[in-house]
């Protein structure tokens, strides 16, 4: 059984956006802080740090999850996707373009997390209803937009992905 002492910094190896990355973390280090401070993945935003606001949402092994209520030591070997991995060769993807078109962000703080949730959500629910999108969005807090343009962008992205 692996035992990491409280003040011991353990080497953590995981995959972030397809690249193998290595850093060190003591047990209490949040996965959020590990990604930002050790690996310089600054697209992972830190909001409430107790699982409520959704700003830190990432994909872990394909699923949208909070990164602030898990610890870096738990993520050894995991496959992580963050907002940095969405654009392809400098070009925004379908979902990101829909967000831009619909003005689905103002300050952008919540956006990275919402994009990751929507990415997973659209794989499980490729043709969502508005109610389903709103239900998924209930796991995020946005203080700028009033959510309406975010809902429109996600529905539009689903439509666009279905058409291609």
């Amino acid at each position, binding site marked *: 059984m692996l035992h990491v002492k409280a003040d011991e910094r353990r080497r953590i190896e995981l995959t972030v956006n397809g690249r193998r990355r290595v850093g060190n973390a003591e047990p209490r280090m949040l996965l959020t802080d590990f990604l930002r401070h050790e690996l310089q993945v600054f697209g992972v935003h830190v909001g409430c740090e107790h699982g409520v606001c959704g700003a830190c949402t990432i994909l872990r092994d394909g699923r949208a999850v909070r990164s602030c209520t898990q*610890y870096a030591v738990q993520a050894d070997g995991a496959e992580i996707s963050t907002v940095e991995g969405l654009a392809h060769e400098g070009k925004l993807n379908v979902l990101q373009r829909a967000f831009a078109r619909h003005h689905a962000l103002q300050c952008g703080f919540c956006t990275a997390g919402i994009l990751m949730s929507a990415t997973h959500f659209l794989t499980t629910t490729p043709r969502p209803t508005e109610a389903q999108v709103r239900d998924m969005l209930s796991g995020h807090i946005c203080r700028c937009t009033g959510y309406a343009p975010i809902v429109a962008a996600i529905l539009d992205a689903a439509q666009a992905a279905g058409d291609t």
Partner: protein
Amino acid sequence: MKPARFDYYRAGSIADATGVLAELREDAAVLAGGLSLGPMLNLRLVRPRAVIDITRVPRLDTVELRNGSVATGAALTQADALESDVVRREIPLLALALPWVGHFQTRNRGTLGGSVAHADPSAEIPLCLVVSGGTIVLRSQRRERRVRAEKFFLGMLTTARQPDELVVGLEWPRAPADAGHAFEEVSQRHGDFAICAAACRIRLDGGDRIASLDLGLGGVESRPAPVDTAAFVGRPVDASMVQELGDQAVRPLAPLEDHVATADYRLALARVLISRVVHDAAADARTRRT
């Protein structure tokens, strides 16, 4: 907020976890999805000396259909439970309640066992387990024991789990084929803590009278509150019956009071939600009658 320092144990088996629990007892906290313990650690509401991670214990996230019951592993995520055909078919009440548990993003990691071990008064999964007549399976180095849900939840964040015991799974009696179910909840936003939740399972006889009625309330008291329904067996489900049931159900309650809702408001909600779930469950039962 950042947690205070803790030792980290990654259990590779149930025996690993119970071994650490036997040694450290109250000084160790069991971590699965981290949607309950994580916030408490980060806010320093708890400062355990050690955290035991059980998310990599093999076969702790299974759904198994046995003779009369469905066994769900402690580390089964709420999202996987919601997608399970066995859960939907055999534990319809849980399938109705799970969409109320947190959000898409939290259900992807939050577990059934974690919710039960944490025992928040407003939590949906403990309420469903009580109303279903389910059982919690506990393992320690000394023994394995089963505790009925009604005896397990003792109060606010307090259960019958001993300090050296690990919740390894839940056992849900298979719902009778003719039973109707309903789950309702009121919270500030969908996915927030329930101010009041109600869960119901009902069976009707050939004359549309109540053959059995299981009902419980969450979020009202410090633990899931089963409602005594014995006096209503044999009666039809109608407005006067539901009114009487509501009157009787709220009388013995000692409701919580907090910044979100007064005690009186919780009781008012309890009556409304009892009415809704009993009517809805009866309607569901009628569609299942052959």
